[in-house]
């Protein structure tokens, strides 16, 4: 049962990375779109694309938190009371980001929109960075099973910095790829071109960081490295192939398929992390089985998951379909 719960948890992490990640990335492009006049059209596309779906995309984070604390309560407490600094910063970022976005959408004057837009954009970069750093701290085994680990060293370390940087770039990459498709759908060639250039650049940077990451992990998190290059190697390879194909497609001017491949590349990496951790939840000191809640609790988690799959997934598909058909209007 603990394996099932862990799979559900990682599925949540993956979906958050792919869907929530694109949302964060859109904020990155908002931040870098330049002055009010120059950045006007890219920002408008970002607003239109994000509007209806952002909240749904972020519920995945809540999903991960509740599954973690219900199914693996000790590990949740240990992570929280070790990595509290980056987690608190991420929480602040989430508030600033959500509020900034929602307010910016309905406000009227340029100066108001600037303030809210800035809050949204800056926190869209800060939040994934610190969440990535948290992932790095967990992945490199820096969270003791009983909690109370080093409050600084647990996230100021090579693997965490790698995680943070990778999270930011990957989010930017995903967002740019989605926005290319969105611009294509709305028949806006100038914006399609705009985001295509950025998608390619972000893809190359993400690839480079991932490559450099291999050396970082070899020194800093040898067990993770061994498993990523061992048992999880197929997933890493899938990720590389998908990433490269997506890039090629982007360069050739295709946009729709690129979106799914880019998402698959990210999903495969997150999945690879999960496989590489197995059978441990924290470092090599806390196994999934030891950390798991009693089976009756895990069965509830599983049941909730099944109910979510049959209710939320079709609803979510309905939402995305309505959005793609242009039936949801952001103002």
């Amino acid at each position, binding site marked *: 049962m603990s394996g099932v719960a862990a799979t559900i948890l990682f599925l949540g992490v993956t979906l958050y990375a792919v869907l929530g990640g694109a949302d964060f990335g859109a904020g990155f492009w908002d931040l870098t779109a330049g002055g009010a006049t120059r950045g006007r059209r890219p920002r408008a596309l970002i607003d239109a694309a994000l509007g209806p779906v952002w909240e749904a995309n972020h519920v995945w984070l809540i999903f991960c938190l509740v599954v973690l604390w219900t199914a693996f309560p000790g590990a949740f*407490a240990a992570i929280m009371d070790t990595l509290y600094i980056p987690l*608190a910063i991420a929480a602040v970022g989430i508030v600033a980001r959500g509020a900034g976005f929602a307010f*910016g959408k309905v406000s009227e004057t340029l100066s108001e929109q600037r303030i809210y837009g800035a809050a949204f954009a800056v926190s869209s970069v800060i939040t994934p960075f610190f969440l990535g750093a948290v992932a790095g701290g967990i992945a490199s085994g820096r969270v003791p099973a009983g909690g109370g680990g080093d409050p600084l060293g647990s996230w100021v370390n090579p693997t965490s910095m790698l995680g943070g940087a990778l999270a930011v770039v990957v989010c930017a990459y995903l967002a740019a790829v989605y926005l290319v498709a969105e611009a294509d759908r709305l028949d806006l060639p100038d914006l399609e071109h705009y985001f295509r250039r950025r998608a390619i650049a972000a893809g190359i940077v993400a690839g480079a960081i991932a490559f450099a990451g291999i050396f970082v992990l070899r020194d800093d998190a040898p067990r993770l490295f061994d498993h990523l290059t061992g048992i999880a190697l197929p997933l890493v390879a899938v990720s590389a192939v998908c990433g490269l194909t997506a890039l090629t497609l982007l360069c050739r001017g295709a946009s729709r398929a690129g979106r799914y491949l880019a998402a698959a590349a990210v999903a495969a990496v997150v999945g690879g992390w999960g496989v590489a951790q197995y059978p441990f939840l924290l470092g090599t000191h806390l196994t999934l089985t030891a950390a798991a809640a009693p089976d009756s609790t895990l069965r509830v988690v599983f049941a909730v998951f099944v109910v979510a799959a049959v209710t939320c997934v079709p609803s979510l598909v309905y939402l995305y379909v309505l959005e793609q058909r242009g039936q949801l209007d952001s103002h």
Partner: protein
Amino acid sequence: MLSAVVAAAGDPAQLLPARTQMAFTLGIHIVLVPFGVAFVALALIANYRGLRRGDDVALRLAERWSRVAAVLFAVGAVTGTVLSFELGLLWPGLMRRFGQAYGIPFAIEGLFFFLEAIFVAIYIYGWKRMRPWPHFWAGIPVVLAGIGGTLSVIAANSWMNAPAGYTLRHGRVVSVDPMKVIFNGAFWHESIHMLLAAYIVAGFLVGGVYAAAMLRGRRDRYHRVGFLIPFTVAAIAMPFQIVVGDSAARWVFNNEPVKFAAMELIPKTTRDAPETIGGAASQAGEIHGPKITLPGVASLLSGWSTSTRVRGFTSVPPADRPPVTIVHLAWDVMVGLGTALLGLAAWFALLWRRRRDLTRSTWFLRAASVAGMAALVTMWAGWTVTEVGRQPYIVYGVLRTRDAVTRADGVWLSLAVVFVLYTLVAAATFLVLRSMARRWRRADAAGVGDSDVPYGPARVLEANPSSPAATGTR
């Protein structure tokens, strides 16, 4: 000063800031909850009326309410996310020991929030382009998910008051009975009380906006319908709320006697216990300060007879008592304002029975325009009774709050950051809503629809890219 009231010697230094932060963030989140739970329901009533009777005024109200709901829902979602973090950041001792039981309702809640977020998006953004009836039906799941979400969160909270459904061995939870966790002893009265509170607070607050506008002379049909729909909903809920509150009080009397003694300000175990309004208690159990005493009433209310024996709070040592005065005053506020709101609902019913034109009764409108604020204060007070009254336990009788709190440094800092951040968010929410209201008023005065507001991003996208910006969108 506060620390003198609520802290005891030997408490970890993190306890006070952690409790303050938890109370503050919950107190803000709970303001948004009624809107998340009930606002879309109010909009749907107007929406239904608009579609069935071809009532354009009702439709306009429904659309605008759902736009306001969108903003408040976003703030509710982010403040709720912060709470999820805080459960781990501030109370790791709670999650470590009881996550496997206490977490269950939250896992179910996640499901409801998911559905809510999805259908809120469809309903709110579907106004312009979806067909009317499918759009209306897309709003229904929001209402149902709001109810489900409330029941689940409250299942978690009531479990803290009436923990059940788990077996401990050597201090570790070794087995869990999910049904007993969810349907714990305090579940039904707390969840129904909160659900009604959500409709009461949202109804009175929204209605109050239109009551205030009518007082300023805007007595057209738009304002009248905008007042009547939410206010009627809240007024209908009021009598039920009192009945549920009364049974809640009896449950507390039977199951959390010390909390009850604090609520009623009863120091020594006694029959013929008086109901005290106002007043304060010293740790030694002396009652002082200005107060009104109604002999025997507390006994009467808790056991139908003045001879009912009521336990006093000095029956447990000071370390096991909640901050009595805070609990007692909060209780007085809830019951006092709750009774006043019931009176307002009765007044409303009377005016309605006599077919009076409500909009002409200035005093009624005055009362109605502050009812929302009063309901909000009532709800805050109720939560203070529940949460502060449970102290010194975080899980009643099982785990002390001081043993659950984080040992990390910097809680004061995080409290300060949260305080500043939430103040900014609150101010921005207020400004944004005010500017939306002004824009609508201008649009109504000019006789144009809302879609003519020239700021939508879609508009910028449709424009020719090479033409210079006509209007300002960042």
